[in-house]
């Protein structure tokens, strides 16, 4: 049953959405770091010393010389942009993933969820045969074929299945972590998180006008969405509603918690890539006739 689900053809545009949008979200997140590559991964800034196996330090990576730090930053940017444009897509995605893994390990201090999640997403893009549409690679391939466009609308893709499962697994785990944490017995967890330097004008405005019960209601909605995500996304009848709720939730997170906007964009990318209804995804009508459902 799993094999048949994995091998069922899906729109090839799904992997292209991830190929284009995920590197943009990741590069957006990295932009503040890239401007200071020397401080970030080089010897121009503070480095946590080698702590000999301390649990907070996954691995000790010595600071790079300044020129090497800037070189890594340049390769990261170029490979990310090449992936977005679909130039030598597979190798660009591999190199981008390798750079992302390196910088995540090199500097624990500037590493967040985007840093740790993005190598896996980019590996999926690399293994998923991205670049067959909406890319320079596809354009050159078409030229080589004398303008004839090969039919590539749908094909089996384990990478797309992986990208569909990833946010659901994350929501489920996150929901259970919240249940084990404070979300069931403290009605104001969300409220408690809008008062530090993550605060934006939107969170300040909402914090100023919403009554306390509204924060509790939002908290309950998020918790129900996350804990039950495998059901919401598993059943075809609730899938589109779950997709809309998930995108809305990440839009609000991005608007309310300033620096978290890049993670929000990456998660929206995963949702759009995995769950945007086929009819909208293939708006030119290529595959919409044969796409009753994503997972059926």
């Amino acid at each position, binding site marked *: 049953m799993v094999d048949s689900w*994995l091998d069922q*053809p899906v729109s090839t545009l799904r992997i292209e959405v991830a190929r284009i949008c995920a590197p943009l979200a990741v590069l957006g997140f990295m932009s503040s770091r890239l*401007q200071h590559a020397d*401080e970030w991964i080089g010897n121009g*800034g*503070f480095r*946590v*010393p080698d*702590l000999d196996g301390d*649990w*907070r330090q*996954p*691995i000790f990576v010595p600071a790079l010389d300044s020129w090497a730090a800037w070189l890594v930053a340049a390769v990261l940017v170029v490979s990310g942009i090449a992936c977005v444009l679909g130039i030598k*897509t*597979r190798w660009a995605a591999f190199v981008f993933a390798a750079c992302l893994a390196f910088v995540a*390990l090199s500097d624990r*201090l500037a590493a*967040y969820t985007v840093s740790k*999640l993005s190598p*896996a997403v980019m590996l*999926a893009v690399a*293994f*998923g*045969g*991205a*670049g*067959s549409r909406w890319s320079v690679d596809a354009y050159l*391939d078409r030229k080589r074929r004398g303008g004839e466009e*090969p*039919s*590539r*609308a*749908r*094909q*089996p*893709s*384990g990478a797309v299945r*992986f990208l569909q499962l990833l946010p659901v*697994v994350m929501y*489920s*785990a*996150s929901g*259970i*972590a*919240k249940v*084990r*944490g*404070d979300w069931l017995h403290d009605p104001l*967890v969300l*409220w*408690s*998180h809008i*008062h*530090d*330097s*993550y605060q934006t004008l939107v969170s*300040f405005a909402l914090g100023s006008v919403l009554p*306390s019960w509204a*924060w509790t209601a939002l908290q309950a909605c998020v918790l129900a969405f996350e804990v039950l995500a495998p059901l919401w996304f598993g059943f075809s009848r609730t899938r589109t509603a779950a997709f809309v709720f998930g995108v809305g939730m990440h839009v609000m997170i991005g608007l309310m918690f300033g*620096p978290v906007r890049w993670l929000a964009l990456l998660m929206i990318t995963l949702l759009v890539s995995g769950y945007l209804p086929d009819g909208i995804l293939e708006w030119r009508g290529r595959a919409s006739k044969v796409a009753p459902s994503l997972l059926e």
Partner: protein
Amino acid sequence: MSAVARPPSSWPFRGSAALRVLAALYLAGVWLDGTGTGIPARILPRAPNYFLQVAALFPRSAVASIDYRAEAFVCRERAWREIDTRPYFPIDRDDKENRFDRVMHFFRENRKTMNALDAYLVERHDAGEAEDGIQGRIGGVRFLSLRIPIPPPGSRLERTVRRPLSAYPDDERTFFYHTPSSRLRERCGLAGEDAR
């Protein structure tokens, strides 16, 4: 349904059993770590386990709005003054994703890291490369956290802004590191004097 030819960039391993197993193990690892089972941390080396730690976001309520600050011992005045660490940690300088805040968050109880940070700040300040609010040599630093109370819902909310350390009452400050006084005296050339 039109099953079609593979695109030009399809990967020879695509769809292979090995990749499927790896992907399944990764997803299982993310779930097991996020749900707090601790299983991946027990069986995996720290580096791969680190990449699984992506799901358990904001599980607890914040008990206070926490901000990390530093004071420097000004040799000429023999007094502690707030030093602005942001020029020496320019990445995301104005929010808590700043690397100074992060080193405090993770390593404030790790003496080796605090000593390294102490040396870094003193060296950078004395090099005179940036405006950090302090003139003249410094002999050492002390690090503290501000624990600013969260207002109850319905109360008048104030926009979060960075205020000088002096704007916060003593009971909202928690010190957790200071340069040893012997090192302060040595750096300031105060041999035999009390540098506290």
